[in-house]
């Protein structure tokens, strides 16, 4: 099994771009339905069930409605940026998916095709770069609307996304330390060969990454940029019809990408747990399943059904996180602005930094001791488990849930 010739590679890349793009938009459409259904069920309602069986055609009806609605443009808006902003927010959300591997390589008569649009050597850096661009769309939308609420929403979104990008980046560093690589396919492979999903040996990173992903995607409890009750949906107050829809699609595409990223980085991506048949990765242009004791490559045997099974595994993991996003949204109220900033800068940043040092130290010690494989994973899991438990214990001592301590302030000052 060898790599593709350049022409075939181009053709397959074009096909993959179209398929992935369509799949994302379709998934986004159905995520809106899932959001409405789950929210309804959580509130003991039934949700949309009029259009098609179980309301399955509802996203199409919504789409038609949004296309047919009137496009409004505030008289004092900056036209250029007002039109540019939705595009700027939707493009980064869609293109970040390009580097996420969705399944095991697929064998074709022309060679083995990677199930990733672009297996960039800079993987995660590309994701970080493009997800940071998303803030421009939000901020420009808020600013160009020339509306004070929109503007506040834009300011909040930029402050929040910049703050949480720091924690997001820092929570990724342990993953990079462990994988020794920033390519997402390589990270998946490293998790396969370690036999541990990184959610276990890097549990605190996982927790932080989930929290910062919520902030990065502007989902509750971090939806301050759109805060309906205070800012009248913030940065997209002035948008209508398809331009509004584009912000919506961008938000859900962000959620999808963040979910897929979490599944890839921390839950082993497309690898099926407890099954080594799907171990395959490229070494010097050859697809191998692993290395023998003496370092000889064992050839992998890709098959179409393996691609299918691994894709299902990836889809299940991603949907779990999508469900988590929706579930949390309909559980929690919004943070106050100072709480968001406090959590980002005073809690997550220092703890994530300390955790990077802890993981680096542990990995160094284990490497020096020559510990490998299962023992390496277990040792790191134990260390991270202690760190996570300590973190949770520290931020969640029993004083915390009792509300304000009684009688701490003299009565006169209340």
């Amino acid at each position, binding site marked *: 099994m060898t790599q593709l010739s350049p022409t075939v590679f181009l053709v397959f890349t074009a096909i993959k771009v179209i398929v992935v793009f369509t799949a994302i938009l379709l998934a986004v459409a159905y995520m809106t339905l899932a959001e409405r259904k789950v929210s309804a069920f*959580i509130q*003991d*309602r039934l949700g949309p069930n009029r259009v098609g069986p179980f309301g399955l055609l509802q996203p199409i009806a919504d789409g038609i409605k949004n296309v047919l609605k009137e496009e409004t443009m505030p008289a004092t808006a900056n036209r250029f940026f007002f039109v540019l902003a939705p595009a700027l927010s939707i493009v980064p959300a869609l293109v970040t998916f390009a580097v996420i591997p969705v399944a095991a390589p697929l064998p074709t008569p022309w060679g083995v095709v990677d199930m990733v649009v672009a297996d960039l050597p800079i993987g995660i850096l590309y994701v970080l770069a493009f997800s940071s661009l998303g803030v421009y769309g939000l901020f420009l939308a808020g600013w160009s609307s020339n509306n004070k609420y929109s503007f506040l929403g834009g300011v909040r979104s930029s402050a929040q996304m910049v703050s949480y990008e720091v924690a997001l980046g820092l929570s990724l560093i342990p993953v990079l330390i462990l994988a020794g690589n920033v390519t997402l396919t390589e990270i998946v492979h490293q998790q396969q060969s370690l036999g541990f999903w990184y959610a276990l040996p890097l549990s605190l990173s996982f927790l932080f990454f989930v929290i910062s992903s919520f902030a990065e995607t502007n989902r509750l409890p971090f939806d301050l940029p759109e805060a309906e009750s205070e800012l009248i949906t913030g940065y997209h107050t002035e948008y209508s019809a398809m331009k509004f829809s584009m912000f919506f699609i961008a938000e859900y595409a962000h959620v999808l990408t963040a979910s897929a990223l979490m599944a890839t980085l921390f839950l082993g991506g497309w690898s099926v747990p407890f099954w080594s048949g799907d171990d395959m990765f490229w070494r010097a242009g050859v697809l191998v399943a692993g290395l023998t004791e003496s370092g000889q490559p064992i050839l992998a045997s890709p098959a179409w059904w393996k691609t299918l099974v691994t894709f299902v595994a990836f889809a299940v993991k991603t949907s779990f996180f999508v469900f988590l996003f929706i579930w*949390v949204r309909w*559980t*929690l109220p919004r943070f106050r602005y100072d709480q968001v900033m*406090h959590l980002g800068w005073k809690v997550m940043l220092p703890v994530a930094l300390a955790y990077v040092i802890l993981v680096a130290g542990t990995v160094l010690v284990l490497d020096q001791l020559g510990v490998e494989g299962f023992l390496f994973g277990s040792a790191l899991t134990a260390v991270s488990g202690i760190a996570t438990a300590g973190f949770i214990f520290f931020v*969640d001592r029993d004083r*915390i*849930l009792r509300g304000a301590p009684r009688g701490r302030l003299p009565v006169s000052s209340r």
Partner: protein
Amino acid sequence: MAVTVKVMHRPEAGETSYLRATLKGMALTFKHLVNPKKVTIEYPEERPFLSPRWRGTHVMETHADGRPKCVACGLCPTVCPANCIRLVGGEDDMGNRYPIVYEIDEFRCIFCGMCQEVCPVEAIHVGVHFENAEYTRDRFVYDLDRLMEQDHPSTLLWDPSDPLSE
């Protein structure tokens, strides 16, 4: 009077963690998510329960021969707080009074049910009914024929088992 500011004592942000509260809340929402008992009434297929004391669209009671029971005494337009009843009375050869024009503007009506309470011959009633949507506004002024055609049950103004509301 001096201006006073109410100082809210909130827990310092540093003391606040919502981890356990979050998990507790998520457990609760999940319980509701899988709870098969839903409160939605799927309206066109499934009808909501209306109390027998529900006050909705009016009904004019008729005699067995199809004449309205109304004797055009003029009490209902007098008592109507929304002033939505228009009544023009007439008298036949036998000296019986009857309504020539009897119109109720369902848009103006506040469904207080006072017309039913005041009616000495129990002719006009509010009814246990709410589906009175129309395509044009003028269709909401119900004339006498239309009021007599209404076939939904009329409202009970008191609970028959407890007429004095004791």
